[in-house]
């Protein structure tokens, strides 16, 4: 059947085939995002001794569908004093990089859309571009709360990106590659060979920076409901708001996926007697995402200057010291521990 399609489309075939692959990644991702919102409400509900949504469908299972329909029906209000073009461009710029980054994520040994050599750099570039959606939305809304939220978000993302980048430097030193598939393969050999162990400080720094980079609690000063109402998306309604929401959750899944790939061995099985499988990867991602929800239910919001201090004065020095340490150890006879 694929040969027939190939003959029919001729030179257009690669384009069409790539499109099909993109849809095959984005559709399950959208589904995961929808059900992550439900999982968040359920998990936080149980943590606060409530039931969470339980009216729509069996045990609330259709709640995301109801939410989606509601948001679709609502009117998108554009403030009179807003900059119309940029106001509508903001959500698009927030969600586009969040999806584009998935192009290089390997789900399996062969299951990857673009197996490029500089995959890790590409992901870093895409996640850093995501901040434009927030900045543009905040500025174009022409509202003080929105603008304050976007400024906070910009400063926070630029700061934590450095710590995140340095944490990744340690990974690529150990794996000798920027290709995500090769990074996973470099960790083969079971639970104790994964990079979380030799690069433990970097793993912790990466994960906390990832929480900050996605503007999640306790680093959600960009939204800060109690101080600046809802931050950068205070003027958005209906689907325009939903797109920001989608982008935030897609980013959460992305950074959890990256942490699983780089520090927890991706699709590799933790024990030798079980086969490697994409199920392992999905399980690791789900476990990391549970931490995101757990953090939100547990920690109070950081103050802005505390966030900056943590990023610049704690995380960056920690990563620098550990990179030097790993580099030094690689010159000794214990180098095998760090590869």
């Amino acid at each position: 059947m694929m040969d027939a399609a190939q003959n029919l489309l001729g030179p257009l075939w690669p384009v069409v085939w790539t499109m099909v692959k993109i849809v095959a990644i984005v559709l399950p991702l959208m589904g995961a995002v929808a059900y992550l919102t439900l999982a968040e409400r359920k998990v936080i509900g149980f943590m606060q001794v409530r039931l969470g949504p339980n009216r729509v469908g069996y045990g609330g299972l259709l709640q995301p569908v109801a939410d989606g329909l509601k948001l679709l029906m609502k009117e998108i209000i554009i403030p009179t004093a807003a900059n119309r073009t940029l106001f509508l461009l903001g959500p698009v710029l927030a969600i586009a990089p969040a999806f584009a980054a998935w192009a290089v994520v390997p789900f399996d040994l062969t299951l990857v859309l673009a197996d490029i050599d500089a995959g890790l750099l590409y992901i870093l570039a895409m996640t850093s571009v995501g901040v434009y959606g927030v900045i543009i939305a905040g500025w174009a809304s022409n509202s003080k709360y929105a603008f304050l939220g976007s400024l906070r978000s910009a400063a926070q993302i630029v700061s934590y990106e450095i710590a995140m980048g340095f944490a990744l430097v340690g990974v690529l030193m150990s794996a000798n590659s920027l290709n995500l598939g090769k990074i996973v393969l470099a960790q083969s050999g079971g639970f104790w060979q994964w990079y979380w162990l030799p690069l433990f400080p970097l793993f912790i720094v990466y994960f906390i920076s990832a929480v900050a980079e996605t503007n999640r609690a306790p680093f959600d000063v960009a939204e800060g409901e109690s101080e600046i109402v809802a931050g950068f998306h205070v003027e958005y309604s209906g689907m325009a708001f939903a797109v920001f929401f989608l982008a935030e959750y897609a980013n959460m899944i992305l950074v959890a996926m990256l942490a699983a790939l780089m520090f927890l061995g991706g699709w590799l099985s933790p024990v030798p007697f079980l086969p490697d499988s994409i199920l392992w990867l999905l399980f690791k991602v789900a476990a990391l995402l549970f931490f995101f929800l757990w953090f939100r239910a547990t920690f109070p919001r950081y103050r802005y200057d505390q966030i900056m201090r943590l990023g610049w004065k704690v995380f960056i020095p920690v990563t620098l010291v550990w990179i030097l340490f790993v580099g030094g150890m690689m010159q000794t006879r214990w180098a095998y521990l760090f590869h």
Partner: protein
Amino acid sequence: MIFQDYVFYALAAILLFAGLRVITARNPVHAALFLVLAFFTAAGIWLLLEAEFLAIALVLVYVGAVMVLFLFVVMMLDINLDKLREGFWNALPIALPIGLLMAAEMVMILGSKHFSPDMMSTPTPRPAGYSNTAELGRQLYTDYLLPFELASVVLLVAIVAAIALTLRERKDSKFIDPAEQVKVKRADRIRIVSMPSEKEIIPVTAEAVEEKKK
């Protein structure tokens, strides 16, 4: 090859348009955003040239960090556009010849004499497994180690200078140092005073009240 040509012309057209809008856009925020678009399309052209590391680094560094801070500043500034345009006609007699001179210089350097297809042979495309990034790293840390380190020292000096120029402590600042807050011990905030216990108070009962009345 044809497909890549189309991509090149599309990217080049967007790049030229964005570059033009950077200097003609009335709103400085729009101008900065067009500059971001220009960086993006330039990165696309570099990708076509098989320089994927440089292309991604351009997006990562310039789009992801430098332009974010730039926008940050431009958005906060309250720029009076009319004032900026005031001196346009006065400056034109000087600016125009200088601009033309620079354009002429660029044409002389980048013109067909040095950059025509005859002068440059078509580079052979690299095989698929060729890692541009690894090769760049090897070059930087072997052949170009000294210039590379010198450049980093120059950057470091610039960083130190920028901080030294702007670092000043305001006397009336109410800034709280989080490090000090974290370091606070119990003894710094509370003092336990030992004092004699109070005299025992006899509880007032109805009988006692009755007795008093008598």
